């Protein structure tokens, strides 16, 4: 119990630190949002006009005052307003999160399925060369730039074969290619974890015993591997969370989807600090919560860890 409380306290500390670091980092960026918003020469504004617009937004508050204002706002659940559009940050995040969550969630599930198919395929494959191919696919998967993969998939499946529409597709159709694009690179580390777990299990003496009792190979593998792979898979989920958000930026840009990734890239381009601050807190919160869960759940799955954790 003390352990759990300690973990929660340290998670809160991490969250506050992430907020502070992000605040300082974003304040240090050159230029300002008002200037960027009105810089576009096609808006037909002169330098003086931009300066006066800037004044009307009334910037120039002390750094510390801004920090307190922003922090107290966040603690009270007020995320502020976007400088680029004036929209409440809460609304922007609210409309971006579900789409990204769906994309990332499905991406994760498909990646897990893909990884399992590769790993079990490699182990159970009757021919050596097929096993080799399946084992080396994950390495190939992480070697392809995601944006390039997305564009190639669109070219082939949508424009050449005409199988999937990328413009105003149906709700399910809209997800196929983006999910695949996101899942491919993420499946690679998962497949590698699985392959390693399978090899571990196969090397253990008890497998020979179980096998001699006449159990089917596949059944043995499935039961024991899943038990053995559960922990590494769980821990890897924490790290992949971050990669999913990074991957979502690219996927959402290529497939013209609105979501947290695209919001991040656009907000950064516009130096829309309130929005970025909101995204950082959101991502840090997700990171902290997932890892907290992993840390609290892991000892339950594998009692050996209890000792290590407390050591």
């Amino acid at each position, binding site marked *: 119990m003390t352990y759990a409380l300690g973990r929660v306290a340290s998670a809160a500390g991490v969250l506050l630190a992430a907020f502070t670091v992000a605040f300082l980092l974003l304040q240090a960026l050159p230029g300002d949002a008002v200037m960027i918003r009105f810089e576009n020469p096609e808006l037909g504004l002169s330098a003086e006009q931009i300066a006066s617009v800037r004044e009307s937004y009334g910037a120039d508050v002390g750094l510390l005052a801004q920090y307190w204002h922003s922090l107290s706002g966040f603690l009270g659940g007020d995320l502020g307003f976007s400088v680029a*559009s004036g929209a409440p940050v809460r609304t922007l995040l609210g409309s971006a999160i579900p789409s990204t969550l769906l994309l990332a969630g499905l991406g994760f599930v498909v990646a897990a399925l893909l990884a399992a198919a590769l790993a079990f395929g490699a182990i159970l494959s009757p021919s050596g060369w097929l096993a080799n191919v399946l084992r080396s696919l994950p390495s190939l998967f992480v070697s392809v730039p995601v944006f390039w993969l997305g564009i190639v998939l669109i070219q082939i499946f949508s424009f050449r074969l005409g199988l999937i529409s990328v413009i105003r597709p149906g709700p399910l159709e809209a997800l196929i290619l983006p999910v695949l694009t996101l899942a491919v690179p993420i499946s690679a580390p998962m497949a590698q974890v699985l392959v390693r777990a399978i090899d571990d299990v196969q090397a253990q003496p008890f497998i020979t015993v179980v096998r001699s009792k006449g159990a089917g190979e596949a059944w043995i593998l499935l039961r024991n591997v899943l038990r053995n792979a559960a922990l590494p898979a769980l821990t890897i989920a924490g790290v992949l969370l971050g990669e999913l958000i990074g991957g979502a930026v690219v996927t959402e840009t290529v497939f013209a989807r609105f979501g947290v990734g695209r919001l991040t890239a656009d907000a950064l381009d516009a130096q829309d600090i309130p929005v970025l601050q909101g995204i950082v807190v959101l991502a840090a919160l997700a990171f902290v919560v997932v890892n907290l869960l992993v840390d609290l759940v892991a000892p339950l799955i594998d009692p050996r860890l209890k000792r290590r954790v407390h050591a």
Partner: protein
Amino acid sequence: MSRTPSGRRLAGLTAVVSATALLAACGSGGDAGGSGTSDGSASGTEAAAGEPIEGGELLYLEYQPYTTLYPPQSGFYPNGALIANITDRLVYQDPETLEFSPWIATDWTVNADATEYTFNLRDGVTFSDGSPLDAEVVAKNFDAYGLGDAEAGFPVSEQINNYVSSEVVDADTVTFRFSAPSPGFLQATSANGAGLLSSDTLDGDLDAYAPGNGTGVVGSGPFVIAEETVGTEILLEARDDYDWAPAESEHQGRAYLDGVRFSVTPEDSVRIGALTSGQTDVIRYVQAYDEAQVEQAGLQLFAPQTQGVNNSLSLRFTNGILADIDVRKAIVAGVNAQEVVDTVFTPNYPVATGILSHTALGYVDHEAELAYDPDEANRLLDEAGWTLGSDGIREKDGQKLTLVASEAKPQPLSRDTLTLVAQQLKAIGVDLQILAADSGTYAEAIKDPDQVQLYHSMVGRTDLDVIKSQYASTNRDANLSDDAELDRLLGLVASTADPAARLQASADAQQYLVDQAYVIPLFEEPQVYGAQDYVQGFGWDTVARPVFYNTWLAQ
């Protein structure tokens, strides 16, 4: 008081140009005096395609999301494309003839020195929120655009010069007064920059026009913003009770389409692929290298011209290196615009022959003075004391002849263009670097002549004032100018009441820009659209923003 260059053929409100006809036409255009127009066999395939069919939703893929719906800032294409379809203007300007005709104003009078304009308004026009479009609200619109409002964040419109006040004479008559002649005002009332908005909309501050608030921006146009997903999609719905199209338009009443869906698709390959694979109806910003694909697929390609200041590089002469007129002249002579067009672009992008596009009002041919002449460039630089270093770059007093150009995201293929220009300048010993930076750094760099010396931009407006918009130090100030003579010449363009004298003022300003070697004109910039063959009546305004009022789907 409608000024129009003679000899333009009336091409109808909706010129539907087939790809081949357009290519042929562009090859033959180009005579001086603004009388040449790329008409060829253009215009009017409507008859062949049969009677317009009402209904259907058109899908339009846009390259970038809009940034504001405040009309004076409609120069940015995505903004203008929406404002053009949701608002009406007092006066209509024909995109082909550039002649003015009644729209919301039934008629107008201008005093002799162009300091007082009076408009009579059409009856029965309403905004989509039901409020009447009367003299009072028109006055309120122009007070906002002409005077600005610091508190609300409204800057003064770059298109409205010398504005002082409005007067509501009666319910359907309004008078505007100016402190000095404002001969460009009539055209300004026809441009997207003076799109008429409802009184409630004008009560909002600048943020009320920002993305996310689209449905709250209320005009009287044929379409209304019905739905918006920030950053990705906007749905325009036709107004059933719309009944005040420009008088010149054959088509009256509501728009043929039920709706137009603007979908932001930034990836070039996705837009073009979606078009050629039949997933969308119309796309904007067909890149030059993709035009052949559109033609091969048998689809329609439209390349209306923006008819203003050409796509050019402005030389920032307040920079130490470029302060020397001989260096500027050398750089102008060292750039081969023809090669840029031949390599990177297509015949839809005619090589610039002057400061203004040859279809722009007041165009003067300066082809000879702008000619590519590397020998002359080398001679000038030698004379100016810039000697070739061992690395092939010239230097003087230990300083390298290194200049920086800004890559302009809104300009077509800016990076490829600058890459080629850099290669050309390298041949005369000038090192041209291309600025790559984030938006914040970029925004500051382009305002500093010591960070960016060659500024890539253009501006479209079918009025003589356009040259002032681009070069005056109080407007876009492409050169970051401190040249009082230039400002004086540009000021004359915007405030000379006599039409002939004003044309001369524009010619003087163009001559001055060329003589001072302030500008490297590259090409006349079109907006290139691709459309399915069943899309009929696709039109555009004077500066090539899409107009969907006459568009229908022959399916």
